[in-house]
């Protein structure tokens, strides 16, 4: 097994909402190894961004409480001073943000924005920085790099800007890259181009990647391992092949069944009832997903579902998935029975 670069243990990230703290990341543990792509999937509001921002130390500590451990190298990032953390972020850990239209400073040239992390992390002369930046721009697929170097964000298209955002993240050769829905804000055609670029870069680099996405197609193409999150908790972790071939948790299966490309013989798309509850309205006793699969009788649910290894390297929360079924499948059976009669 490769070396782990990041180990998260029982991370709890809580936000102060009207005087009370509510956990948006609720006891998450996960490990990222060298050169490994870990995809984090889940509907929006499941706490994926809250998780990434916790790793990067981007939460406003005035209204956010962070508990647990985020071990990077031999340090717990949660215990570092801001000055020490600043030595790591931008250099060893970098982040690609979701919306390239807002992630860049409108008043600084592209060149300056890519060079900025180098100012703090690398000892380079001005020309060295510029050369490195031009090289980075070429690597992210920008051909007229000399010109783009002096341009401002508003002069570039969304896709080009996202390439720049990626170049910023790569500027100091990180060992861990967090990508929070790097294509969600882009046009569909551009999404594919950016994902291709990410894949290509991933092949060239040794970087571990946490790829947050709700595009399961992307997961299938890029990820080594998949973490499924629901309402702040991890409900399933498995190698990508296992997860697609043998999804266990009802939430994972619901997600997979709601995607057209993943429908094999089945004709009907599953629509997950309801929405992810907000932090204050989330019932934190018992299984959090139960209210959204109301057709499963109460006594089928586990009272305190815990993560356990159901199969080698395949972890799932709760064991009652064994009796889980989709109502549309049963409808088929009943129809069949009726015709026979």
């Amino acid at each position, binding site marked *: 097994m490769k070396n782990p670069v990041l180990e998260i243990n029982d991370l709890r990230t809580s936000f102060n909402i009207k005087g009370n703290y509510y956990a948006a990341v609720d006891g998450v543990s996960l490990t990222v190894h060298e050169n490994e792509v870990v995809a984090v999937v889940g509907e929006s509001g499941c706490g994926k961004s809250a998780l990434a921002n916790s790793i*990067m*130390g*981007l939460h406003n500590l005035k209204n956010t409480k962070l508990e647990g451990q985020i071990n990077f190298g031999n340090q717990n990032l949660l215990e570092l001073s*801001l*000055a020490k*953390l*600043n*030595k*790591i*972020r*931008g*250099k060893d850990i*970098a*982040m690609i*943000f979701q*919306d390239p239209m*807002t*992630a*860049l*400073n*409108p*008043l*600084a040239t592209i060149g300056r924005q890519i060079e*900025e*992390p180098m100012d*703090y*992390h690398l000892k380079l002369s001005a020309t060295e920085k510029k050369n490195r930046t031009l090289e980075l721009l070429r690597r992210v697929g920008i051909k007229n790099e000399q010109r783009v170097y002096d341009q*401002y964000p*508003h002069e570039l298209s969304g896709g080009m800007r996202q390439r720049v*955002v990626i170049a*910023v993240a790569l500027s100091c050769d990180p060992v861990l890259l967090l990508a929070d829905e790097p294509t969600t804000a882009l046009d569909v055609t551009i999404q594919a181009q950016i994902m291709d670029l990410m894949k290509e870069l991933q092949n060239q680099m040794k970087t571990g990647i946490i790829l947050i996405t709700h595009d399961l197609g992307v997961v299938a193409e890029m990820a080594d391992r998949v973490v499924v999150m629901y309402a702040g908790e991890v409900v399933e972790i498995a190698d990508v092949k296992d997860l697609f071939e043998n999804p266990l948790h009802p939430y994972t299966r619901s997600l997979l069944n709601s995607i057209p490309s993943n429908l094999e013989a089945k004709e009907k798309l599953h629509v997950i009832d309801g929405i992810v509850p907000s932090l204050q309205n989330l019932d934190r006793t018992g299984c959090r997903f139960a209210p959204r699969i109301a057709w499963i009788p109460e006594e089928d649910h586990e009272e305190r579902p815990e993560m356990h290894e159901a199969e080698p390297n395949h972890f799932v929360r709760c064991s009652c998935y064994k009796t889980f079924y989709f109502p549309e499948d049963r409808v088929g059976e009943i129809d069949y029975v009726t015709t026979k009669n």
Partner: protein
Amino acid sequence: MLKFILRRTLLMIPQIILVSILVFMLAKAMPGDALTGAFQGNPDANPEQIEKIREKMGLNDPWYQQYGRWLGNAVQGDFGQSYVHKQPVTHLLAGKIENTLLLSFFTLIITYLIAIPLGIIAGRWTDTWADKIIVTYTYFAFATPIFVFALLMMFFFSFILDWLPYSGSVDIKIETGTWDYFVSRARHLALPVLSGALISTVTTIQYLRNDMIDQKLKDFVKTARAKGVPERKVYTRHILRNSLLPIAAFLGYEITGLIGGSVFIETIYSYPGLGYLFIQSIQTRDFTVVTSLVLISATATIVGTMLSDIILSIVDPRIRIE
């Protein structure tokens, strides 16, 4: 860039012409005309005589002919005669323009010297005691009418403490150009400048504070933090740069505002500038002077707007200049 500035400057000409027509019409619409003032209260005035003079002066011509004459003269620096002071308006304005410009200039400088640091402190350390004090100050400054505040300042610093003079622009007996003259001018400026500045800081402080609070939440600030940029640099390089930009652009408008705003300050401190002259002329119905002053301040507004446009085009790369 030069082309833009040139084009923007040329654009001012029709604006100024339009304003001048408006001002002229207003002046015409006011009761009485140039002669009314000249013969006011004169029992010997013979109405027939006056009518003759009126005819001779062209006051009975159609408005556009009168306007043409008036504009032609104004362009050559001739704003006509003040009928109260019995001398050309230009003479009357001579030293006063300089006085008002000096007052405005220092008020502006002091305003920014106070407002920018306070705005930054309040915007950066929101909800600390420092911020609360600053915000309280802006509420007071906002609620206090400038003439009330100017009177209070005068009462306190001139009458109670007797530190500073409360009227005029310089002591009379001092020779121009000497060190004493310079000091005397500065002392006469102190109270008007401070009174104006302490009130006019409000907009800048509140704007800067609010804008910094907005900018702080922007995604690019998150990007900067994710790059490992130290907190102080996150502010100077990213947040402040974006927040100060509109302030730089407002500079042009501020200048205009100060020329208008000096009416109260100059009147209260009997400071011989354009604002004081304006009030006096209105009271004495010295219409030629009033019209000239309105024209000057309108022109200043147009120039200020142009300055703002030009500054904005220089500091903001998003403004495209072809």
